[in-house]
């Protein structure tokens, strides 16, 4: 499998048109986060695979310079990939918050450049609050 130089594969991610393409993360930037922290953000990268592969919603346009075509995958994780015991594996890691993965189109797929937790919208499961104004449009929603 060919991998872009300096990138680590995350997995195949869903695009708004229903197709799937490889998603990557920059290895140097992950090194920076690993070395200086915060550790929780580094550890939370474990949620990226489920965010891009099985999101609740995908938003397009991040309302910031040069990110008009970038994507945001949003998911309310129902389990923690690190919890392998039966009791913990079915427990949402953070009640009331959704996990967001931000990505941009690159040469051989999408590159995830950031991720974070935001307060969940009161009405839309798996959506962050203020999603109507924080993004240009909702490009895909789980049926």
């Amino acid at each position: 499998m060919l991998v872009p130089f300096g990138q680590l594969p995350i997995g195949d991610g869903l695009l708004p048109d229903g197709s799937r393409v490889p998603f990557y993360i920059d290895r140097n930037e992950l090194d920076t986060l690993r070395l200086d922290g915060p550790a929780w953000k580094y550890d939370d990268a474990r949620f990226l695979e489920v965010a891009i592969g099985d999101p609740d919603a995908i938003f397009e346009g991040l309302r910031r310079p040069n990110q008009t075509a970038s994507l945001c995958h949003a998911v309310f994780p129902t389990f923690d990939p690190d919890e392998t015991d039966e009791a913990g594996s079915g427990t949402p890691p953070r009640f009331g918050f959704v996990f967001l993965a931000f990505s941009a189109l690159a040469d051989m797929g999408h590159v995830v450049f950031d991720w974070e937790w935001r307060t969940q919208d009161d009405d839309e499961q798996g959506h962050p609050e203020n999603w109507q104004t924080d993004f240009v449009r909702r490009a895909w929603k789980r049926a």
Partner: protein
Amino acid sequence: METSLNEYLKANEPGPFRAVPHYFRSGDYLTYFLSDSVCYAKRLDDVVTLYLEPGTDRLVGCKVKGVKQILRSAGDFGIDLDGGKQVRLGLFFFVGAAPDRADREPKMKWYDLLKELSAVEFDSSQFALCG
């Protein structure tokens, strides 16, 4: 050498926390964390996202978006950045806070908190080193 993100995460433990601004070229943004407390993100404006502690909403850090664009614009308008080596975070906060928007008033408490971080200096040589 790890061949996937999951392999990398399993093989590499995080290091001790350091409160320094970092620039991430792939997304043209920088982050600055005061502590390694778990937090959530709250978008303040087009430029700044806050990192807040759940429950207390204590300010844990911030993210500045569109860094290169802001520095380029500042230079184009002749704003002196002291040689361009060290840039204070206050410049970026100002860009986000300056527009006179209808939603500005409820956000003033957050801008007031950001003033405490305004003097933190960001080493713009990271543009060449990071990512």
